[in-house]
């Protein structure tokens, strides 16, 4: 099985929702990855659409880069609606 690729599986559970990562499968090709994903992750109508993606094609942020990557957004409070206080008389905005 080592020759089989590892694929990550994403399932859209309902129309209108986005695809969500659910796990992985091994397969010899894309078509088999799709069949295996269907058998493994949607045996009880858990999905209406499946994506399978070869794991090695995913670029992920590194765990130890968390600060470099995400800290810059922490001090930009003005990006949130709650930063802007309006008088009560203005009503809902």
């Amino acid at each position, binding site marked *: 099985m080592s020759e*089989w690729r590892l694929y990550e599986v994403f399932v859209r559970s309902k129309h209108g929702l986005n695809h969500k990562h659910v796990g992985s499968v091994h397969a010899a*090709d894309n078509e088999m990855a799709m069949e295996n994903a269907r*058998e493994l992750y949607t045996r009880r109508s858990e999905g209406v659409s499946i994506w399978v993606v070869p794991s090695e094609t995913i670029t992920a942020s590194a*765990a130890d880069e968390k600060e470099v990557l995400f800290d810059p957004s922490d001090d930009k409070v003005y990006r949130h609606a709650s930063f802007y206080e309006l008088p009560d008389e203005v009503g809902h905005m």
Partner: protein
Amino acid sequence: MYAQLVETGSKRLKTLEEMSPEEREFQQKIDAETKIEAKNWMPDGYRKTLIRQISQHAHSEIVGMLPEGNWVTRAPTLKRKLQLMAKIQDEAGHGLYLYSAMETLGADRDEEVQKLHDGKAKYSSIFNYPTLNWADMGAVGWLVDGAAIVNQVVLQRTSYGPYSRAMVRICKEESFHQRQGYQILLDMMREGTQAQKDMVQDAINRLWWPALMMFGPHDDESPNSQQSMAWKIKRKSNDELRQMFIDQTVPQLEFLGCTAPDPDLKWNEERGHYDFGEIDWKEFYDVLKGNGPCNRERLATRKKAIDEGAWVREAAVAYAKKQQQRAVA
């Protein structure tokens, strides 16, 4: 429990002072209930313990299909046959969810399966007992899956993210297993002949103690528990889980109109729990060492399946390559 006696490589807990800065930060994350993910730093022992536990758990699901596979062609009705096949397919699925979770730790699936076939990796002792009559299918679903659920519900809160998420998925599916098992027994007790009722009691007599053994040795005989609990891989002790299982199972046993093969089993008003007799630990360790009634047969069946399926896997790879070449040409 589907994982018994998982080695952690440590018999004594390190104090925060003894830990390296990385270890300390890791332990503090665990203590704060932050889930650990695949790419996060983790102590080598934590990684190895998880690989051992998750692979053992996965092997148990896969070997666990065999005692039931024995009854697919012998199921009494088409309905029962379909239910049994659905349950067995779920178990294959559970094994695969778990192998996936294990692979996120850098373990290789083929290597871990090879360890099982070489007798170096364990699986739950329960699957080394034979399934001799149809009532065994009921008793396995009710008692064995029941014991697994008690353990797995707690494991949904285990500290390693991918393992925890696999457990959430598995727990959603397990209750079907237990209910279908109990219903088989109920039907036999309510509508069966005397011979069929006797089969139910016989199945319970044989599987009761092995089901209790699934939770592993007593807490004071479980040297790896302390470290596993500190890492929150394990969330409750073997004895606690066993007691929970007995307390919830005895009323169901009485409702069936059956008895347990344990003269010491009785309600203890003061403790608010059932008291029960001592497990035959010699039998437990014997089965774990490979000397149970079906150990050799189970492993031989798994090896045969892998070996005889080799040509299918090779053909799939050859076909994929050919398709790729055609696409390029």
